[in-house]
């Protein structure tokens, strides 16, 4: 084997700051997209179960429309397709303020929101119907019953699959490099281009993703324990 490993390329020159920028961008776009996905997921997941057909239909439309188109297509759609439809001043503002970041964030959030929706719905549907009846019987409105009882219980039940979905979201943020968001994968490619040291650059990227994901999983495991519903089967880990 003739390959000469040069791990030094990861911190010589600009590489270190590129990697750091990449990590920050990945975390930023993922965090914002996660908030959007959680909000859309909770809203549409809950609407799937309400006793009013038009709202259910709207939620079904959202889920099926957004989860059945590849994320990459959504990235292109929000980046190349949507801005020309906006008023000129908004377009100008966007392209001066990182349009690719916002388009990527939107694509990621809306796509994962549709997937999160199904996770939330399965949580809600595992709650006995009588919990809803008990809420109504004490005078809560349907909205209050969902906000105070049904959704809080469902969220506690779905932490493990929601963790899965969150990790997927973080990893899928790498797709945003296709619309030139300078996130972690983008930066490792840049290091590779400048140094011709692919294995070092990609190893760095791989390890950073691994650390980020394991950390998120650890936080979610803490959330799961902290908000566990007493009396349910205790989970391992």
């Amino acid at each position, binding site marked *: 084997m003739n390959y000469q490993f040069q791990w030094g390329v990861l911190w010589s020159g600009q590489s270190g700051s590129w990697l750091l920028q990449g990590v920050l961008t990945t975390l930023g776009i993922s965090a914002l997209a996660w908030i959007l996905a959680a909000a859309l997921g909770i809203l549409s997941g809950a609407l799937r179960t309400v006793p009013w057909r038009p709202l259910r239909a709207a939620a079904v439309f959202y889920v099926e429309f957004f989860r059945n188109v590849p994320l990459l297509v959504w990235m292109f759609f929000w980046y190349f397709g949507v801005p020309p439809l906006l008023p000129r001043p908004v377009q100008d503002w966007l392209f001066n303020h990182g349009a690719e970041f916002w388009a990527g964030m939107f694509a990621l959030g809306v796509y994962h929101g549709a997937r999160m929706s199904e996770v939330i719905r399965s949580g809600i549907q595992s709650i*006995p119907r*009588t*919990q809803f*009846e*008990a*809420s*109504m*019987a*004490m*005078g*809560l*409105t349907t909205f*209050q019953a969902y906000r*105070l*009882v049904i959704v*809080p*219980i469902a969220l*506690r039940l779905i932490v493990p699959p929601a963790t899965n979905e969150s990790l997927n979201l973080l990893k899928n943020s790498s797709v945003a490099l296709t619309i030139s968001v300078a996130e972690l994968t983008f930066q490792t490619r840049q290091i590779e281009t400048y140094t011709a040291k692919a294995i070092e650059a990609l190893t760095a990227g791989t390890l950073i993703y691994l650390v980020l994901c394991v950390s998120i999983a650890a936080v979610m495991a803490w959330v799961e324990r902290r*908000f566990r*519903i*007493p*009396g*349910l089967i205790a989970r391992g880990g």
Partner: protein
Amino acid sequence: MSETVIEFKAVDKWFGKLHVLRAVDLAVSVGEVVVVCGPSGSGKSTLIRCVNGLEAIQGGELVVLGESITRPGVRMPALRTRVGMVFQSFNLFPHMTVLQNITLAPVRVKGLSAAEAEKTARALLERVRIPDKAAAYPANLSGGQQQRVAIARALAMQPRIMLFDEPTSALDPEMINEVLDVMTDLAKDGMTMMVVTHEMGFARRVAHRVVFMDGGSIVEEAAPEAFFAAAQSDRAREFLSKILTH
């Protein structure tokens, strides 16, 4: 003649093609304790679930606390604050403590302050004889204790009517009495109650009237002494012979 607080007028209800309530007429006066009994599938649970609108009716009229609940535009949440309900399966919210279960609706629906609601809740826990369980979660209580919390939770809204849907059917025998005792106290305090139950001892001691249902109709209604001593219909006698001799 005392005030009528619940009045069924020729009420019909279907589940799909199944005719579960057939032209039911029934009036309950203020302060009255009515026990509804009958074989399984007779429509007794459905009957009381209509009173707070958990089930919609398809025919006739149902007037609760002076409001016709079949009238379009009636605000059910407001009505439900005045009609408490206790379920067979307790239905406490598992992610909340006992105290949070009891204060939820008073704070969120009636707009009481947290401090006021807590004061009332603690007094109610005293009344249902578990003052030391305020901080416990439902999973850490026995069935009998859970059901007493459920009663306290319903009472926290200061309802004028209490509905009980087989409140002791999910309980172990030794816990049935602790729940029935609380219900008996409530009846003595003058609460208007509709109780679906198989506890015929309770019916005999506490009820003012027993309503016997079969096949979606009220077959017989009578004072408990008369009902148990000499039921008029064959169906009621057959039901009683099964339930009293097991």
